[in-house]
């Protein structure tokens, strides 16, 4: 952070920039081509496409200049190369649910259904179904996930809301306030102690 010398490579007023959904969000800034890139998850393509000025409300196409890449590894850094943060969606099934529930899920998770699901502009979760992806940006995103050595859920999700909130606050403090890197684990530990 010190290398940036107080001049962070961000848009103006980053502390009041929403993440997505609105034109002055970081996804909106990218969609309007007023910023070069944003840190974004797997829903990147859909968010940016719908915020492109003049985009149709129904199934907006991804702009041809849009691209996606995993956060690059830092050479020599600790940790697993190729590790990625990502979403962790799953099906929750009640223990006493009838057998038909599993049958339905098996159908939903079949290669055929997932391939057709992919064709609607979503990223499938079943190997082999990626053939259904036609959108080039979605292909990049799907490949990023497939090629990752491991995928960890977003840390503020992984650690739960209490520690996650403390972590996010401490990171924002580090970047824009007077926080230090040491204060991030401190804040997380303090939050964990209240659980």
């Amino acid at each position, binding site marked *: 952070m010190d290398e940036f010398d107080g001049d962070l490579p961000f*848009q*103006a*007023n*980053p*502390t*009041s*920039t929403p993440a997505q959904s609105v*034109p*002055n969000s970081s996804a*909106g*800034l990218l969609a*309007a081509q*007023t*910023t070069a890139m944003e840190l974004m998850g797997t829903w990147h393509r859909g968010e940016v496409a719908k915020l492109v000025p003049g985009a149709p409300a129904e199934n907006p196409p991804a702009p041809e200049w849009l691209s996606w890449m995993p956060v690059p590894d830092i050479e020599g850094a600790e940790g697993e190369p190729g590790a990625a943060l990502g979403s962790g969606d799953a099906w929750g099934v009640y223990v006493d649910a009838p057998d038909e529930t599993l049958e339905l899920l098996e159908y939903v998770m079949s290669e055929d259904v997932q391939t057709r699901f992919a064709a609607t502009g979503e990223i499938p979760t079943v190997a082999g179904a990626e053939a259904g992806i036609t959108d080039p940006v979605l292909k990049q995103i799907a490949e990023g996930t497939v090629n990752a050595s491991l995928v960890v859920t977003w840390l503020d999700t992984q650690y739960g*809301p*209490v520690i*996650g*909130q403390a972590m996010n*606050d401490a990171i*924002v*403090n580090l970047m*824009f*306030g007077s926080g230090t890197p040491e204060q991030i684990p401190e804040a997380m530990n303090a939050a964990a102690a*209240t*659980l």
Partner: protein
Amino acid sequence: MIATETTGPAVSAGPAPAPIKRRRNRVPAGQRREVALFVGPAVIVYVVFVLLPVALAAYYSFFNWNGLGPLDRFIGLDNYARLLTDPVFHTSVFNNFFIIVMSLLIQGPIAILVALLMNRRLRFRGLLRALIFVPYVLSEVTAGLAWQILLQSVPPTRWGPVDTMLQAIGIQEPPAWLADPNVVMWTMFGILTWKYLGLAIILMLAGLAGVPEELYEAASLDGAGWWKTQWYITVPLLGPTIRIWAFLSIIGSLQLFDMVWIVTGGGPLNASSTMAVYMVKYGLNVSQIGFGSAVAVVLFFISLFIALGYQRFALRRDLEGSLTGGKRK
């Protein structure tokens, strides 16, 4: 049916008739039933929806509880210790008091001045009154979103609609209204003033309507100027209205939540957090119901303390008799 009334002096003068021996509680049964019938529902609602939740919040605040499952992790005063040592909570309390003090110092005088101006014979007076009251009638969410859009920075420059207007009149570098931690509370105060000044003005106008015209005539015969007349006649007679408005303003400022939540969510860097925002963000939203309850209890006691103190010292002369059953000390 024709009601027969006997008119008499409102205050009986002279020696009272021989005192009738009255015993307390000797109220006819029918009347008692009537009282129970009218008061009962209100008492039940008050107990179930006010007293009981307050008591429950106080109870929960001694537990580490996420809102589900049994209340079995008693932690004593730990939630309060955590709360009172958290710098974000300190900021939140400071912000509440910032809004209280600024409202009393700035909104009150502006409201009185505007009310004095509007109390004169003006063209379009009805229309002006309606316009001034419009922000107060708007829903908090609508007004908050409107201000957020007006004050936001819009790509590709960092300037939003308000900034562009200011630049048109020569202010080239307006502050970052919602993004600068040192500016955001002033912005919030501006929005709240815009929203609630209308109510203050309407209250003051109602108060002014109660000032007898003869006093102004007498003052003008005595040669008092406009300012002196306002200072020595209007303002003192407006006292009860000002005190009630100030009370509403203080309580409203202590409970401030919705406008902040909509416009900034308490940010940036928690710079615009208030006690209620803090309670929702670090209590409800992260499922720490015990901790959130502790915040609620602290907020409750601060409000109660201020409200009772204010009634005791500032509102006493206005409320005299109404709370003490007509007995004067």
